[in-house]
C-alpha cells in the first residue's frame, strides 16, 4: 500500500494531470457506442462498486453488473458538458500511468478493497477541489445507480411507490 506521504504527492501531481485532462483524454480515450461506457470504465466501476456499496450489496457479480449498467444510463442522461468532464476523468482512470499516479492502483481487477478504500478516502478529503469533485461524482453515480433499483429497496425497508389507480 501507498504511504500517506506518497499518496499526497501523487494526489498533487494527479490534480495537475486532471486539470490538463483534456489533453490526456485525447490520447487515452477508448471508443464506445453512444450511451455506453468504454470497457476500461466499466471495469473501474465494477471494482469500486462493491467497495462503495459494502454493507448493502450482496456478494456476487449480478448486482454489480446491474449497478454498472445503471451508472451507464445515468451518465447518458447528464448534460453534454458533464459527460465530457466525466469522460476525461474516466479516461485518466482507465489509463495505466495516470491511474497509478492518481490512485495508486495498477489494475482494477487486482485491486484490493483496502486499496480502493484508500483511494476513495484520499480523494474525498483531498485538498484539491478537482479531486474532491471527482470523488463526489463516483459517489453519486454508484449510490444513485444502486438505490434507483427496486432490488436495493428491501435492504433499507423502502416499500417502493404506492399504486395509483
Amino acid at each position, binding site marked *: 500500500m501507498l504511504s500517506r506521504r506518497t499518496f499526497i504527492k501523487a494526489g498533487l501531481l494527479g490534480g495537475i494531470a486532471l486539470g490538463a485532462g483534456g489533453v490526456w483524454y485525447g490520447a487515452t480515450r477508448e471508443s464506445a457506442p453512444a450511451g455506453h461506457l468504454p470497457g476500461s470504465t466499466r471495469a473501474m466501476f465494477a471494482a469500486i462498486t462493491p467497495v462503495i456499496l*459494502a454493507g448493502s450489496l450482496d456478494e456476487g457479480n449480478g448486482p454489480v453488473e446491474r449497478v454498472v449498467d445503471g451508472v451507464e444510463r445515468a451518465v447518458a442522461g447528464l448534460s453534454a458538458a458533464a459527460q465530457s468532464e466525466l469522460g476525461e476523468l474516466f479516461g485518466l482512470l482507465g489509463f495505466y500511468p495516470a491511474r497509478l499516479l492518481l490512485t495508486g492502483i495498477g489494475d482494477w481487477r487486482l485491486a484490493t478493497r483496502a486499496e480502493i478504500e484508500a483511494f476513495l478516502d484520499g480523494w474525498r478529503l483531498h485538498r484539491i477541489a478537482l479531486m474532491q469533485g471527482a470523488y463526489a461524482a463516483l459517489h453519486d453515480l454508484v449510490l444513485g445507480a444502486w438505490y434507483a433499483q427496486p432490488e436495493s429497496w428491501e435492504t433499507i425497508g423502502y416499500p417502493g411507490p404506492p399504486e395509483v389507480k
Partner: protein
Amino acid sequence: MTIRDPMGDGIAAGWKVLDASLPDAPRALEADVVIVGSGAGGGIAAEILTAAGLEVILVEEGPLKSTRDFRMREAEAYPHLYQESAARKTRDKAINILQGRCVGGSTTVNWASSFRTPASTLAFWRERFGLADYTPEALQPWFEMVERRLNIGPWQRAPNTNNTLMRTGATTLGIPVGEIRRNVRDCWNLGYCGMGCPTGAKQSMLVTTIPSALGRGAMLIHRLRAERLVTAGTRIDALECVAMEADGVHPRPIRWTLRARHFVLAAGAIGTPALLLRSKLPDPHGLTGARTFLHPTVVAAGRFAKAVHGHAGAPQSLYSDHFLEQLPIDGPLGFKLEVPPLHPVLFSTTLQGFGDEHAASMREFTHTHAQLALLRDGFHPQSHGGRVALRADGTPLLDYPLNEPIWEAAARALLAMAEIQFAAGALSVQAVHEQCRGYTSWPQAKEGIARLPMKPLLTRVVSAHVMGGAAMGASEATGLTAPDGTLRGVDNVSVFDGSVFPTSIGANPQLSVYAVAARNASILTSRMTGKPAPPLA
C-alpha cells in the same frame, strides 16, 4: 379519488402541441407573443395573454410528460424532468441544484410549498432597488388572484411524521413553527410531488394555466432550445431555436425561427440570463447573470426509535422562520427551516461517505427524519450570490463562490437543526458533512459541529431555488429589467421569472414568481391590447 390529466386529454382533442425532436425540416412560425419557458412565470403569462385574445407560442426545452407518465420512480423522474438529470452543479461543484426542465418547469417537480414574498424582503427591494410599487398592499390582489387560481390554501391533513418531528423538537425549545400552504386540489397525500404528481392534484402549470392557454389556441413546442434573440435595430425580430434529440441532451441540426411582436423570457434564473448572454444584448452595467441567488441549503439527518417514513405524505407542511427573524435582514444570514421528502436516490447521494458507514445509515432510512436550512442570501453586504456565464458550447454555468457569511450561517444552521432533532428525541444526528461521523447527544453535536471545517465539498450544500440574474431596479445601474419586468435597452422583451428578483426571497419562491408574473404580464397585456388585462381563470 380523482385523477386529472388535462394535457393528455387536450392533446387527444387536438391541441397544438409539437415535439421538436421529431420533424426533420426547419420551421418558421409567428405569433403575437413568444414565451420562452413553461414554468411558473411562462405558465401564468400564457394564461393572461391568451385570455386577452393574443396568439401565443410557448417554447420549452424539456419534454412534455404529464399525469399518466408520472410513475414515482427517481430513475425516470430525474433524467426526464430536471435540469442536467438533477445533477446540475455550480462551477466548483460545491452546490447541487434541483431545477425543473420539462413542461411546467419547476412547478411540475416542486414540493408545493407556497409562501407570499416576505414583507421584509419587499421593504429591502423598495429601499435598495427603488421598487416603490412592491409593497405587500399593492401585491395583495395579485397574490389573491394566483392563490385562487392555483387553490393555494392551508394543508387539510395532518403533517407526516417527518414534519411533525421538527415541530416536536422546535416546540420543546420554544421555537415557533408555522404551517405551509400548498397548491393542491384533492391531494392523495402520497409524497411524490418531486417526481411529477401522479394524480394531477398539485396545481402546477401542467394542469392549470398551460391547458387553459392551449384550450384558447396557444401552441406549445417542447424539446426546443431557445438559442438566441435576433435584433433588428432596437427591436427583437426573432428567436432562433434548436431542436433537441429525444434524449434531451444533444441538440439536433434542425433550427426553428419564431417571430413575434413581443418576447417573454421565463426560462428560469439560469436559463434566462444565459439566453440573454448568448444574444449579446446591450448591458452597459454588466448585470446579466450577476447576483444569482440560491438559498444555499444545508442538511441534518436524525435517527429515531420510531418509524418516520419520510418518503410518504405531503413532503413539506411545516416550517420555522424563527432564525430568519432573529437578526437584521442585512446582518448575519438568517435561515428558514423546513423538512425534505426522503427518497432512496436523493437521500443516498446526499448522505456523505460510502461503504459500511453509509450502508448503516441507509438501513435506518425509514427511521430517519431530515431537516433543511435555507440560507437567505443577497441581503448581507458580502452576499453577492453567483454569476451565470456560458460554457464553450453556449450552455450556462453558474459560478457561486461560497464565502464567509455563508459558512458562518451554515454552521449556525447545522447546530440549530441538531438541537431541534435531539429535542425531538433523536437517537443520533448527522450533519451532512464529509467529516461528520454522527453524534449521539446534543452536547456532543454542539462540540462536534463547531469543529467541522466549513468548506466547499466538505459541507454538503444543495439548492432548489434559483433567483436573480436579470434583476428589476428603478435605475439602469441597478436593474437589467424595469420594475414591470421589461428588459432595458430593447423595445419588446419582458422577463417574467425568478430572475427578476434583486435578492433571494427568503422563502420557497414559487408564489412570488406567480404573483410578480401575473402583475407584470397583466401590464404587458393591457399595453399590447389597449384594454385592461383579464384576470386569471
